[in-house]
C-alpha cells in the first residue's frame, strides 16, 4: 500500500486567502471568482440535503449572499470553503424547516440510534459493474440509492467522499465531533455498498476472489 501523503503544503497560504482579502478591500470581482469556484459544490450539497431542486437554487443564492455579508466575521482559522459549506448546510436545514413548519429538522432526524453496522452481503461485484447499465440507468440507481440513506449519513458521505473534505473539515462544516463523523461515514459507506450490491453483484453469486485463489467460497 502506498504511503499516506498530505496534499497540503504546510505554511503556504490557501489561494482563497488572497481572494477573501481582496473582497474585504471592496473588490467584487474577487468574490465573482470565489462564487464561480464553489457554486457547483454548494448547489450539489444543498440538493443532497433538501432533495429539492428549487430549494437547492434558493440555498445556493442565500448561502453566497450570507457569506458575502458576513465575510468580516470569517476568522480565517478554517478554509473559506469549509466556512461556506457550513453556511450552506445551515441554510439548507432552515429551508427544510420552512417546508415542514410543524416539525423540527436537524441533521439527525432519521438516524437510527443503535451503534454499529454489520455487512450482510458478501457477494463479489461484476468486473466494471457500471458498464452493465447505460448512463441514465446508472445515474438513476446511484441517485435512488444515496437518497435512501438517512440525511445525517448522506451528507457526511457527500462532504467527505464526494466533495473531498477532510474528516476534520466535515466535522467543522456540520458542527459534529470527529468521532461522530467517522462513525457516520463508516455506516454510510457500508449501507451504500450493501444497497448497490443488489445491482452490481456477480449474477452467479460467486466470489471472484475465491475463483482467483482456486478455492470455494468460505463460510463465516
Amino acid at each position: 500500500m502506498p504511503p499516506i501523503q498530505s496534499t497540503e503544503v504546510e505554511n503556504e497560504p490557501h489561494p482563497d486567502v488572497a481572494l477573501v482579502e481582496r473582497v474585504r478591500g471592496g473588490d467584487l470581482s474577487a468574490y465573482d471568482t470565489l462564487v464561480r469556484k464553489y457554486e457547483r459544490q454548494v448547489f450539489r450539497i444543498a440538493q443532497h440535503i433538501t432533495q429539492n431542486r428549487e430549494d437547492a437554487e434558493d440555498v445556493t443564492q442565500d448561502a453566497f449572499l450570507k457569506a458575502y455579508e458576513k465575510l468580516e466575521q470569517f476568522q480565517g482559522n478554517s478554509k473559506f470553503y469549509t466556512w461556506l459549506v457550513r453556511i450552506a448546510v445551515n441554510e439548507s436545514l432552515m429551508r427544510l424547516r420552512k417546508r415542514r413548519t410543524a416539525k423540527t429538522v436537524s441533521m439527525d432526524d432519521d438516524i437510527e440510534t443503535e451503534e454499529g453496522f454489520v455487512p450482510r452481503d458478501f457477494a463479489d461485484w461484476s468486473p466494471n459493474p457500471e458498464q452493465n447499465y447505460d448512463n441514465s440507468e446508472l445515474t438513476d440507481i446511484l441517485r435512488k440509492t444515496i437518497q435512501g440513506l438517512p440525511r445525517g449519513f448522506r451528507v457526511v458521505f457527500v462532504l467527505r467522499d464526494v466533495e473531498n473534505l477532510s474528516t476534520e473539515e466535515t466535522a467543522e462544516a456540520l458542527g459534529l465531533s470527529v468521532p461522530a463523523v467517522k462513525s457516520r461515514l463508516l455506516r454510510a459507506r457500508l449501507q451504500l455498498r450493501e444497497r448497490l450490491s443488489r445491482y452490481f453483484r456477480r449474477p452467479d453469486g460467486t466470489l471472484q476472489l475465491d475463483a482467483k485463489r482456486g478455492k470455494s467460497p468460505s463460510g463465516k
Partner: protein
Amino acid sequence: MKCTEFLSMLDEVIDETFAAETRERIERHIHKCGHCEVVVNTTKQTIQIYQCHEIIEFPTTLRERLHQSIMERCAKVKRSLA
C-alpha cells in the same frame, strides 16, 4: 485478527490511515478472509463510483442564472454599504 476487529477498522483500511504496526495483521486477515476482502473492495468501488458520476445535474443555463443573481444581490449589498 477477527472479522469484527477488521470491520471496525474498515475506514482506516479504505483511507489507509491505520498505524504502520497494524499493516501486517490487516494484510494477513485480508489474504485469508474472502468475505472481508470483498467488503473492502466493493466499499472502495462504491466510493469511486460516486466520485466518478455526476448524479446532480447543474446545467450551464441554471449556473449562469444563479451566478448572475448572486452577483447582482452582492452588488446591491455593496452599494448599500457605500
